[in-house]
């Protein structure tokens, strides 16, 4: 685990010593403010629409953050060093996830101004804000894990980002397609879509199914990343 933490710390430092990390965080913070203004147009001190929009924006963020995880490293030649070091592949994958997860924490902190502002002006439901942020982390980690798997499969950061976005869009849209099907395919596609697992977070409840879903996404993403790295070693 120590090796994973070392990799995570290194990646986190590298991200925030570069304009890319600062730019992403600042841009996401600004986007959250713009989304807040749009979503408060219902004249209610409620943040469910805001969180809902942030979850979608997390897909974009995940694609951008994970392009540097493996694809960028391969492009610059540092991935080979990492993979040949005496560190297990799962430790590398976990370390990478923790690294981008750390960025997610900083990004979340940067958005906290929004609920604080709403609390200062009105009376939002604090429970729903808490579960919104729990959902933010779960959704974010799940998307980041998918991004890591895609990033491990390519040496092109552009392909990594586009591939991550495509994979997440496919998962999301699967739930929409499910509406046109019947029987078991409908149930399965609906279940696989992240859109059907965020409602609880938005309204103030934490459900075992939703936590299990995003936990599974993290595990599956990490396992896929390890498998891809192993095949490329």
């Amino acid at each position, binding site marked *: 685990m120590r090796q994973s933490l070392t990799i995570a710390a290194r990646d986190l430092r590298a991200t925030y010593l570069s304009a890319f990390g*600062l730019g992403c965080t600042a841009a996401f913070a*600004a986007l959250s403010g*713009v989304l807040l*203004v749009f979503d408060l147009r219902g004249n209610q001190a409620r943040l469910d629409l805001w969180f809902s929009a942030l979850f979608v924006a997390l897909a974009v963020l995940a694609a951008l953050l994970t392009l540097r995880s493996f694809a960028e490293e391969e492009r610059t030649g540092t991935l080979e060093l990492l993979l040949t070091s005496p560190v297990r592949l799962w430790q590398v994958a976990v370390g990478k996830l923790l690294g981008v997860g750390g960025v997610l924490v900083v990004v979340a902190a940067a958005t906290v101004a929004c609920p604080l502002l709403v609390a200062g*002006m*009105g009376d939002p439901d604090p*429970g729903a804000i808490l579960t919104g942020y729990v959902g933010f982390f779960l959704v974010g980690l799940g998307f980041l894990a998918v991004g890591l798997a895609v990033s491990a499969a390519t040496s092109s950061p552009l392909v990594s980002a586009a591939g991550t976005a495509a994979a997440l869009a496919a998962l999301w849209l699967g739930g929409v397609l499910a509406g046109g099907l019947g029987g078991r395919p409908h149930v399965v596609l609906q279940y696989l879509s992240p859109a059907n697992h965020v409602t*609880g977070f938005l309204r103030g409840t*934490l459900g075992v199914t939703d936590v299990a879903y995003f936990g599974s996404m993290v595990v599956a993403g990490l396992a896929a990343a390890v498998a891809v790295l192993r095949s490329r070693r």
Partner: protein
Amino acid sequence: MRRRGILAAVVLVSVLVAGNLLAYAHNAQADLSAAHRFSLAPETGALAKRVRSSLRIIAFLNVSGPAARDARFLLARYHELNRRISSTVLDPDANPGEARRYGISKYSTVVLTYRGRRVDAPQVDELDISTAILRLVRGGTRTVCVLTGHGEPSLDDDSPDGLASVGQILAHNAYQVRTLDLTVGVSPSVPRDCAAVLVLGARDPLGPAEVATLTAYARDAGRLMVVASSLSTADPNPLVNPWGVRFVGGLVVDPQRSEGADPGNVVIEDLPSASPVDDGVSRLQFPAGGGLLVDRNLRDGLTVEPLAVTSGGSWVESQPDKEIRFDAGDIPGPVVVATASDDSRVEATGEQRIPGGGPRIVRTRVFVTGSDTWLTNRFLDKLGNRRFFVNALGWLTQEEQLLAKTAQAQADDRPLPLTAERQARILVLTVGVVPGLILAAGVGARLVGRRVRRRRHP
């Protein structure tokens, strides 16, 4: 090597699928929302525990809409309370055979079956489903008889002074309401299937024959609710005196505990009884009420409980149309404004449950309040009034957990007008200040790092 990788992948996918299936089957929820809006009411929990064998709920809904998702969420909560309660959401369009079998003719119909009985709920809503479960568990509906013919407010009247809210409570607790007019007919009597008789705010006096009929009913293990008023000419004393209660009329005023500027709009905070009628009630609002006196020693076997008492600074104003001031002729507080009388006695004959008859125990229950305004649509949802009425009804009819809660408010109203000033404030802070601070922190860190490196390697 490759085979091991494939095997590992299969095992992992199987574990993930199994884990998700398990989570889907036992989808427990933690409700952190304000007032636990998405959790079922405690009464629903108590009701669910009364289900002793398999209870099946089928909700006929369009499964691709958000209503189906919400329905599954709600029905899963019932399953959490009692594993014997199972549910399915069926699309009547995709399952026309099932829809035909159950005789479904509109979306959102919910069919509940239990021990060979069936009850339908009109929609997937906690109150409707809980009412249906109550009817199933009880084995049917019970009848409550409401006295009419004396200017009483109507249970269909949804104006502020009407009793439509009371009517809704009766409906949601699976009571059938029958109006009882004892002023017509040759020798009118109270029907045998009346689980309780409610005298709710009579404005005109009851005739001697009516009083005699109701008293005879009460004496024969009857259950009577008398909600009296000083604003009417109807004197409730002939009805309530036999049960240790005397209505003194006047106007109860409590300058220390009243709502707004009106000392007659009394707030009750003393509910001293251990009676189940006071369960879960901490305060009441009793406007325009008269006082009650309690005679606890009327006879053996009769227990009279003061349920709600005003503060020591209150009194019964005998001349409310003149100045409200305590003077001679007024009755000093604390004043009792609600009572519960329970009279158990043994009669020599009349037992029907054993062959040959024998002595039987007769139990009468009478609930009296000196105000009738607290039950109107305007006041029923003030403080603990609704709960108090539901408790009284449950105590009279000897039902355990009745449903007091109104339809759970899914709409959570938290107004926040988005003025131009607020909009500007949000944008300046979130688009300007916060990103600016982040970038400044980054630039600052780089400058510091550069300076440190220059010092190390000049």
